[in-house]
């Protein structure tokens, strides 16, 4: 029996010796892990500070974007006011009635002049009327050109609506990034501050927008639309026929 007990004890001593040897080998590894964790703590602290700083800058950037949209809206309104004023004045000039009564009065005066003096006077008056008619034509053409230019300026102001949508899309993106930062902060710090929910809500940016709104490539995009409209109309015509 003693021999068996001796064998058991020896076996257990050998096992213990094996464990101690494994532990001895793993100590440097454990020391490396502890050193790594010690080194990571300041990095995580730095990361937390950096995230908090970046996150605090986002609402400021959002307010700046709001100012941009507000400024472009104000400028567009001022330009539209001026353009509308020009168009109204042109309209008034183009529709002002010819003083027919004055022309008739002059014709009566010429008719009242003695016959021998009438011809040169009538000739001069006709020449004057032709000159005025030519100048009127030039003025009318000039006014039409100004009218067309005003329309072009007005059409170009569509940029304000399009850029407002593009800016609103950027604002929404920043809000999403901020939400991500907030979630990250909650994992890194139990005492992460709760953030105000309306930091990205501004009058000019809280609009319904098209995230793909763009100013350029108008003709290509219109061609795509026209092709679909034409195809649909053809299909509808076939169904009716």
């Amino acid at each position, binding site marked *: 029996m003693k021999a068996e007990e001796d064998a058991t004890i020896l076996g257990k001593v050998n096992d213990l010796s094996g464990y101690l040897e494994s532990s001895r080998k793993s100590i440097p590894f454990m020391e490396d892990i502890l050193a790594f964790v010690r080194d990571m703590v300041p990095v995580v602290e730095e990361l937390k500070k950096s995230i908090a700083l970046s996150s605090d800058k986002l609402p400021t950037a959002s307010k700046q974007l709001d100012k941009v949209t507000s400024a472009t809206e104000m400028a567009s*309104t001022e330009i539209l006011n001026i353009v509308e004023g020009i168009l109204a004045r042109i309209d008034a000039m183009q529709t002002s009635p010819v003083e027919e009564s004055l022309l008739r009065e002059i014709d009566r005066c010429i008719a009242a002049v003695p016959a021998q003096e009438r011809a040169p006077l009538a000739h001069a008056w006709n020449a004057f009327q032709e000159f005025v008619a030519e100048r009127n034509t030039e003025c009318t053409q000039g006014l039409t050109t100004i009218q067309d230019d005003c329309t072009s300026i007005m059409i170009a102001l569509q940029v304000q609506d399009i850029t407002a949508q593009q800016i609103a899309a950027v604002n929404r993106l920043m809000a999403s990034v901020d939400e991500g930062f907030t979630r990250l902060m909650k994992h890194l710090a139990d005492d992460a501050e709760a953030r105000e929910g309306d930091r990205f809500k501004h009058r000019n940016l809280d609009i*319904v927008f098209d995230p793909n709104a763009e100013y350029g490539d108008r003709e290509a995009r219109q061609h*795509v639309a026209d092709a679909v409209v034409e195809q649909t109309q053809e299909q509808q015509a076939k169904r009716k026929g």
Partner: protein
Amino acid sequence: MAGPKFLVVDDSLTMRRIVINTLKTLGYETVVEAGDGKDAMAKLLSEGADFLITDWNMPEMSGLDLTKWVRSTEQFVNMPILMVTTRGNKDDVIEAMKVRVNNYIVKPFTAQGLKEKIDQILKTSDIKSA
């Protein structure tokens, strides 16, 4: 000049002014405006209109939903509708045609482009052009 009464719907005041002024240069003087689909519904019911020009992306009620309402409302079911929007991809246009807009113009549009679309729509409707 006589012509249809337009209802211009867009949540952007700048855009509404641009469309309305462009319509005036094209000879269409009778225009009312609305800031979103719900406002447009109310204006149609209270003041009526002959031709609807609407944006797509709007608060309260989109141009698409406004079109669906118009097409399902007996007194307006045949009203000409022109969609004016920044949405320019094929799927959007298909979706708009499915709810039966008459035509589609992409922003930024030109005055000539707007005229062509209006003329195309009026050709097939009972309403006379300017």
